[in-house]
């Protein structure tokens, strides 16, 4: 029976059909998806913190409105993804506990601090840019609810990248100090952005099953290359320099060659020793605990309304 199920399942995927919540699926497929979607959802929500850090200090009312809208979007994206994840039979409470207990991860990039306003530009341009490359590919993921969430998110996210690039562009065309800030932000965010695509394909623990099941549609390295090729030209255009002396156009491959990524740093930060790991989780726990009364009040109010109706 199970063998038969598995064959039907693989056939469905190979035919390019989507898997829906009530369909039979291998337990490993379910687990892989829960881990990946949860990590994606947590990233959206934790990602609100480094940017939220600059809302009160945005340099103009326009910049502030835009940043608030962007951060609100990230919260919304987290919720779409939690919803998709819950269809796999895990509760929101369990997902949040896993985050608080350090059992679930979020994108490593959000463990870096936002030191200047230019960092908000760099995040929109590079971090959202990298996320978009990844998410555009995931629109074709085999799990229906995840795929639909990706379609919605991609539609909303293109403004995020453009607002970031606009900030970078303005600053690099500004006074010397602003140019310095823009270059400094690019210098600090470039390598962590490349790390967002995950380890090289040969070292990636989860890649092979994920490709077989079409959860992932393109490999880490292919997506990283696409991001680099796109971004180099954008940097040139606004007079910023990518901090990689080995970066050069490879005529034969028709791609940019780039320098070695410092994976020791990556693993150091993933394993909890980045600049902001503790702060990010502590803030999330605090918001959750301090917001508990809202749920309690809503529950009490709903109970009261129910009694009144009787």
């Amino acid at each position: 029976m199970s063998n038969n199920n598995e064959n039907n399942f693989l056939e469905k995927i190979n035919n390019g059909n989507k898997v829906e919540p009530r369909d039979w699926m291998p337990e490993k497929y379910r687990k892989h998806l829960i881990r990946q979607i949860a990590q994606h959802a947590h990233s959206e929500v934790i990602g609100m913190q480094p940017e939220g850090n600059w809302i009160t200090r945005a340099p103009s009312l326009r910049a502030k409105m835009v940043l608030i809208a962007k951060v609100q979007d990230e919260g919304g994206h987290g919720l779409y993804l939690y919803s998709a994840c819950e269809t796999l039979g895990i509760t929101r409470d369990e997902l949040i506990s896993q985050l608080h207990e350090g059992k679930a991860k979020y994108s490593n990039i959000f463990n870096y601090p936002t030191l200047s306003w230019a960092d908000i530009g760099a995040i929109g341009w590079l971090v959202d840019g990298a996320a978009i490359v990844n998410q555009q590919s995931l629109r074709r993921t085999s799990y229906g609810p995840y795929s639909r969430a990706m379609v919605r998110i991609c539609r909303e996210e293109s403004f995020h990248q453009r607002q970031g690039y606009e900030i970078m562009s303005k600053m690099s065309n500004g006074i010397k100090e602003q140019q310095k800030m823009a270059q400094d932000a690019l210098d600090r965010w470039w390598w962590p952005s490349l790390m967002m695509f995950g380890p090289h394909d040969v070292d990636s623990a989860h890649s092979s099953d994920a490709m077989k099941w079409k959860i992932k549609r393109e490999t880490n390295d292919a997506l990283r290359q696409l991001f680099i090729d796109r971004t180099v030209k954008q940097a040139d255009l606004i007079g910023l320099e990518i901090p990689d002396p080995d970066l050069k156009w490879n005529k034969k491959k028709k791609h940019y060659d780039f320098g070695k990524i410092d994976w020791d740093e990556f693993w150091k930060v993933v394993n909890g020793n980045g600049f902001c790991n503790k702060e990010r989780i502590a803030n999330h726990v605090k918001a959750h605990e301090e917001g508990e009364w809202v749920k309690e009040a809503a529950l009490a109010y709903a109970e009261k309304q129910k009694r009144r109706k009787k």
Partner: protein
Amino acid sequence: MNKNQLPTWEVFIQPKSGASFQHAGNLHAIDEEMALQNARDLYTRRQEGSCIWVVKSDNIVSSNPDDEESFFDPSDDKIYRYPTFFKVSKKAKGL
């Protein structure tokens, strides 16, 4: 850890007046009012709709995908339900 997770609601959005409602996703809320407001904030930040329905997820009844073949079988062999089944003269216009 808190265990009072709020119930799940399915959200349907009508893109514009007169159009069919489409499923957009779901959310958590304690009552109808909160569900509607959350649906507005979550699924219509960019003028995606003119009207929203929310339905408690428990109240949705679904056919079973495993029974897809047998469940939809009755309509499989009724090609006469399509206009192309009927052969009419090319001269007959407006059919």
